[in-house]
């Protein structure tokens, strides 16, 4: 292949290195006004009164909005429409917005905010899921599956109890994975304006322009086709710009009311409140194994700290267990999950969405199992990989599965066999593996339409213009799109004109989330390009006196594959086709195949393909200070096919980096103020200085191996690379710390104080383990019983009401009589 697999300068590189990329905050329009949001200083309170007359009269102020202006609730998930752009009657976390000022300048808007008097009646607050379980009143939300419990799930994929009872050994551990935030360098920004026809345009730093489009229409009570959403290139996303946000809806409303463009840019502190980051998750994992460490059954409980709103929570909840079966063969599996409401900024999707937490639990526990049974952790994994082309206990369909070569490469690269357990005290190696989706099998709202669409326009100038709703968040989706079209049509990526992420101009793409873009957009692009190629082949073939099958495309030429000198320039082929057919355009679209999982909740987890990753991490632990330094990382990733090796490696290294941050330092942590300061629950560290993230000085050397075993479902065989490589990093670090100094830290971040505590305990003859001690009692519902394929199941629950849905429960107008 001439383009796919070749190292190239990405198509948007020039704009990025010259400062010409236009991010949302760079959008400046004539007569533009600026908005600022007044945020609650109370974590939980009733709003008694908002006195805004002084603010309305302040210099430069054009408009003051409150919750009264936003009667309609919205939210990313149809089952959790629990947000209002500005709070109505109640605030639920410090930072919840209660009013907005729109003024001639940002400074005047900020000054006027200080003139708004809000009278609150404080309520008791809930700081943790454990508190939520104990506290029935007051309720943070008036819906859920229990007082202050958002979601509860219980699945039995086979009966684990007899399997555990019959196991040679059962290992049980409690783990905690702290929450963290995306910390994109770009603060969220949005500009709303009425165009010359009176319709609304919103430029925004969003990863999901299509979902934002829908929610704007809902929240503003406007027809969607009168709204245009333009996703500006995101200055980093990582999941943090995937929800529809209150500031976007406020800016849109303000533009509609004032008739002028309105910009709202969040401050860094406000970005910490917008959040939607990694859920803190407490986990109890019980695994039964045979004497050689082969898993016979796994029993997982997860407790998620959801924050104050739903966000993606229903999906996040299920992701804390659903992908556990895709890496290793698990014959029987019980999974119970609970998401609690707390008075904190809402959690949502962050790179790996719900799966890094249970991955940490399983990979650390496997390391413990290997040590207890005297097995090499690499062999313990290799002996029980989930097979390629198989269906898991919870009915996920695995296609290609390249984890074995991933493990082999990192074992070899790191000299694992020679060095693990052999390094001097204070140095160690740790291993972990993982798997991830290549796109969620179902959309956020129930529908049977394509997940991604691509349109091509071919012009007599020889220009190919590609229209696609996909959203460039830095991951390189524009380059992938150009590369795929260029490969099929024999062009260079620089020949392709791209129009992306614009709901007026482009066919839908659901967004940059769940590592779906390369696979879904790529397949749609191939279809559109192949259709164009067929048209051009026929016309060019006629001119060349050849059957269309003999016409080939490469090097900007269209030619006889058996006699390459006989041919024409690509542009001449377009002209020939335009003479024959008139103006030229083609379309392509992609919808993933239906999943084998037919039980309620089975909509979360299925993907047309899964990527696999193995990592070995080397650490140096200073036993005097507890400081952990990561000196080197070896990582193998089963990517199917590399589209652009420069970008693919960047995704791996970026994932390693972010995983190291979560492993060692990043915490979205909260504290209660003392009673004399209202006992409010506040963010500990809403600044980039205090929210510790790795700098250039902390980044270790990373050796990346790509395993290219093309998956038949992916474009040219490609699978994802954006999220998977983060997953093994935190558990590999924890396992390396054990190899280095012989203590177990069963939680992240693994901070020096925890390492010291574990070393101190061990020195006193105790276990040398620190981490959570207990998992609270949760009112689990009755299990949904789904027999695994090898126990005669058919993908459905045997105790599910006949009419229940086969996907995530969603509200779905117009799809009555959904197939079961």
């Amino acid at each position, binding site marked *: 292949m001439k383009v796919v697999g070749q190292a190239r300068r990405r198509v948007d590189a020039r704009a*990025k290195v010259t400062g010409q990329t236009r991010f949302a905050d760079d959008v400046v329009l004539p007569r533009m006004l600026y908005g600022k949001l007044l945020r609650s200083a109370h974590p939980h309170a009733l709003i008694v009164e908002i006195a805004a007359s002084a603010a309305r009269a302040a210099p430069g*102020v054009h408009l003051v909005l409150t919750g009264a202006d936003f009667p309609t609730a919205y939210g990313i998930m149809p089952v959790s429409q629990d947000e209002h752009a500005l709070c109505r009657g109640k605030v639920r976390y410090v930072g919840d917005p209660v009013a907005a000022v729109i003024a001639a300048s940002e400074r005047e808007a900020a000054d006027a905010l200080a003139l708004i008097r809000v009278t609150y009646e404080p309520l008791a607050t809930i700081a943790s899921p454990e508190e939520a379980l104990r506290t029935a009143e007051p309720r943070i939300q008036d819906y859920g599956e229990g007082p202050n419990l958002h979601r509860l799930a219980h699945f039995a994929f086979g009966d684990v109890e007899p399997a555990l009872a019959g196991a040679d050994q059962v290992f049980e551990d409690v783990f905690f994975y702290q929450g963290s935030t995306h910390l*994109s360098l770009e603060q969220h920004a949005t500009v709303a304006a009425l165009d010359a026809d009176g319709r609304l345009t919103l430029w925004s730093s969003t990863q999901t322009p299509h979902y934002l489009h829908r929610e704007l229409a809902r929240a503003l009570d406007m027809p969607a086709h009168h709204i245009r959403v333009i996703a500006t*290139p995101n200055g*980093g996303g990582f999941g943090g710009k995937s929800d529809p946000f209150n500031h976007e809806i406020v800016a849109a409303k303000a533009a509609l009311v004032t008739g002028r463009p309105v910009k709202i840019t969040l401050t860094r502190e406000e970005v910490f409140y917008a959040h939607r980051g990694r859920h803190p998750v407490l986990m109890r994992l019980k695994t039964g194994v045979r004497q050689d460490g082969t898993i016979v059954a796994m029993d997982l409980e997860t407790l998620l700290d959801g924050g104050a709103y739903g966000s993606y929570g229903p999906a996040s909840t299920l992701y804390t267990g659903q992908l556990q079966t895709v890496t290793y063969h698990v014959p029987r599996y019980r999974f119970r999950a609970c998401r609690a409401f707390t008075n904190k900024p809402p959690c949502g999707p962050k790179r790996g969405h719900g799966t890094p937490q249970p991955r940490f639990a399983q990979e650390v526990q496997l390391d413990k199992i290997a040590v207890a049974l005297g097995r090499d952790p690499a062999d313990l994994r290799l002996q029980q990989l989930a097979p390629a082309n198989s269906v898991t206990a919870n009915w996920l369909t695995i296609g290609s599965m390249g984890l074995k070569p991933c493990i082999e490469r990192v074992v070899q690269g790191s000299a694992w066999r020679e060095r693990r357990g052999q390094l001097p005290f204070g140095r160690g190696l740790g291993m972990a593996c993982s798997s991830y989706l290549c796109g969620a099998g179902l959309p956020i709202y129930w529908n049977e339409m394509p997940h991604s669409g691509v349109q091509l326009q071919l012009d007599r100038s020889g220009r190919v213009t590609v229209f696609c709703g996909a959203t460039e968040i*830095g991951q390189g989706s524009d380059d992938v799109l150009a590369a795929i079209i260029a490969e099929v049509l024999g062009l260079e990526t620089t020949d392709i004109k791209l129009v992306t992420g614009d709901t007026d101009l482009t066919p839908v793409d659901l967004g940059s989330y769940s590592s779906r873009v390369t696979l879904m957009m790529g397949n749609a692009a191939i279809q559109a390009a192949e259709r164009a190629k067929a048209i051009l082949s026929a016309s060019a073939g006629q001119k060349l006196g050849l059957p269309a099958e003999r016409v080939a495309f490469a090097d900007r030429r269209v030619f006889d594959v058996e006699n390459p000198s006989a041919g024409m320039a690509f542009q001449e082929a377009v002209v020939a086709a335009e003479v024959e057919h008139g103006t030229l355009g083609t379309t392509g679209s992609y919808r993933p195949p239906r999943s084998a999982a037919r039980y309620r909740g089975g909509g979360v987890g299925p993907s047309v393909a899964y990527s696999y990753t193995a990592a070995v991490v080397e650490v140096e632990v200073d036993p005097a200070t507890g400081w952990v330094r990561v000196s080197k990382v070896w990582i193998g990733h089963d990517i199917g096919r590399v589209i652009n090796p420069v970008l693919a490696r*960047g995704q791996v290294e970026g994932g390693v980096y972010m995983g190291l941050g979560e492993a060692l330092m990043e915490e979205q942590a909260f504290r209660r103020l003392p009673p004399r300061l209202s006992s409010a629950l506040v963010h500990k560290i809403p600044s980039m200085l205090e929210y510790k993230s790795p700098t250039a000085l902390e980044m270790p050397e*990373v050796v990346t191996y790509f395993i290219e075993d093309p998956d038949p479902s992916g474009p040219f065989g490609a699978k994802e690379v954006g999220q998977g490589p983060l997953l093994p990093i935190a558990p590999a670090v924890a396992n390396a710390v054990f190899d280095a100094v012989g203590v177990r830290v069963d939680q992240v971040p693994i901070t020096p104080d925890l390492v010291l505590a574990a070393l101190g305990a061990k020195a006193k003859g105790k276990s040398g383990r620190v981490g959570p001690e207990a998992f609270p009692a949760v009112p689990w519902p009755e299990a949904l019983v789904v027999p695994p394929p090898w126990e005669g199941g058919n993908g459905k629950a045997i105790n599910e009401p006949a009419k229940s849905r086969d996907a995530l429960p969603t509200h779905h107008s117009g799809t009555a009589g959904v197939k079961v």
Partner: protein
Amino acid sequence: MSPRRDARKARIALTVNGEERDVVFAGYKTLLEVLREDLGLTGTKHGCELGECGACAVLVDGQPVLSCLLLAVECAGADVTTVEGLARGPALSLLQAAFADKGAAQCGYCTPGILVTAQALLERKAHPTRAEIAEALSGNLCRCTGYLQIFEAVEEAARAEPHAQGPAAGRPHVRTEAGA
């Protein structure tokens, strides 16, 4: 219209990317705000407004400075270089070209601040070690790349740049990619 409170405007003359500029602005504004809002140079970014992330870095008299912490009124007579001043006409500088080729810019948001900071490093030290590059860039956060491709791009530019020639005419510290 209601009366504007910020009636007192400041006025300074400074050099921006080699051009003399005379600019009138609200006196409370930082250099970052004046560059973006009053001079239309939006290549330099807001990341935190507190000097924590490095996204707003520009060169003032050749030194990397966090423009969000510097009041514009302090910049009278200064020589300021932003990302827009790195390319020569249509040609990318060697450092820009290396960033483009090596994957050093993913989302591109931290890139302007890192480019000017690395440019200052290369002027100070033609062939920095990996450790010196990491030290010089340790005040610039990047959430996408994991920094390694940024290090490689700086090293690539250092290899390509015949620094021994020293400052020439015009914008001395910027050389462009061959043939561009």
